[in-house]
């Protein structure tokens, strides 16, 4: 498997570390439902076949955290984004919806 790091270009799997679901967001610890929210955030996964958005870390490269869209049934990768950009956009979207 090869992942196209937005900075470094396409690199082999062994430069990266997979780190789970990128669709879950760290919940607000002050919310009254924080306990349940954190259990879901840390442990519960939908894990369907097909397309996933996942966090990867370019450990042997530029140390960027990435959000990789990958079909886990075929290993085909359709997009790779910088996690930082995705997170900032998420924050922005949350701010706007609030």
């Amino acid at each position, binding site marked *: *498997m090869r992942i196209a790091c937005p900075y470094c270009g396409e690199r*082999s*799997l*062994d430069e990266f*570390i*997979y*780190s*789970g679901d990128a669709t879950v967001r760290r919940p607000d610890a002050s919310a009254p439902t924080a306990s*349940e929210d954190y*259990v*879901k955030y*840390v*442990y*519960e*996964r*939908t*894990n*369907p*076949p097909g397309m*996933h958005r*996942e966090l990867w870390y370019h450990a042997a490269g530029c140390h960027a955290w990435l959000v990789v869209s990958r079909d*886990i*049934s*075929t*290993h085909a990768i359709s997009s790779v984004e910088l996690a930082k950009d995705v997170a900032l956009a998420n924050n922005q979207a949350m701010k706007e919806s609030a």
Partner: protein
Amino acid sequence: MASDHYSIFSVLREALRGHTGWKPAWRNATPQPDYDVVIIGGGGHGLATAFYLAKMYGITRVAVLEKGWIGGGNVGRNTTIVRSNYLLPGNIPFYELSMKLWEQLEQEINYNAMVSQRGVLNLYHSDAQRDAFARRGNAMRLHGVDAELLDQQAVRKMVPFLDFENGRFPIHGGLLQRRAGTVRHDAVAWGYARAADRLGVDIIQNCEVKGFRFEGGKAVGVETSRGFIGAKKIGMSVAGSSSRVAAMAGLKLPIESHVLQAFVTEAIKPFIDGVVTFGAGHFYISQSDKGGLVFGGDLDGYNSYAQRGNLPVVEDVCEGGMALMPRIGRVRVLRNWGGIMDMSMDGSPIIDHTPIPGLYLNAGWCYGGFKATPAAGVCFAHLIARDAPHETAKAYRLDRFATGHAIDEKGMGPQPNLH
């Protein structure tokens, strides 16, 4: 007269008539409209569950539904190791029950699964690892499980062909469980299938579950590629596909699916007796009764439903192999394959009710499912039959993550790929 009981006498009798009298190992059953229990998944666990439901709990109106061919999941693609050398109290009694069941399996099911107790040796390379193994070995002994801590000299005597002299991580000794060993994996599925069939269980292959039917919040049956099948109770035993099947019932599980690769070499004259694990090198190895070296290493490390691995892990595993035993340098890898592991968030399994009445879950086996097969069968059968967890499996609750009772043997936390 057809030959049904397996023994040397029936084999000799059949030899005289060209083996024309053997009956099918299991009937090719057609689905009945309803059953007392439907087990989804014709793998080792599902078949064992069906067998023990019939044998120990007297429930024989049981169907095992298999999407493809039985034994096609992880019971048919593992490195055949059985052991109970666990650390934590939530695990040891369960895996020891499994070891005891392995020890009597063949007589129980009249099928030679080649249960071979030639030992599992975990090597250590530092004082810290030695002490961690001592803690584990002592925990095992407290549970009545056999464990020995060997020093370097004893390891040399046992497995002289390791690289003691030139290794990057010198071998200081090992934790040995003599009663551990290997079992011919496919035979486990076939043996349970045959034994369950003889007790009246319907094994239904090429029958894919497409959905669940609920009435009043209770599960009452499954929609399948061969029509609706009603059931008083439904057990899911589909490691590798647990998330998908659970999703049909609207459940989210603390599970990811990960690839683990395994390897077999060309058959060579046996020189490795038991199983040797090289933790510092992410490598473990045994030699089959056919002569192939069977080995493996770490997970590929990412979520996947594709039954294949990638080259970097192949190299990583073989580096471990060469570091441990450089005499296998010219032995050739014959085949290498990937299996899908039901990786739970703490590396331990789940045998529990689901929040849906009538629906039971056996999942999250990581790469420990094969050795667990008999005990998982007994415990899941117990849960389904009695609606209460089996004594040895009571830690395997689905809500343990919410309550903070994770069973984390490796101490890696909620990172499925690191267990």
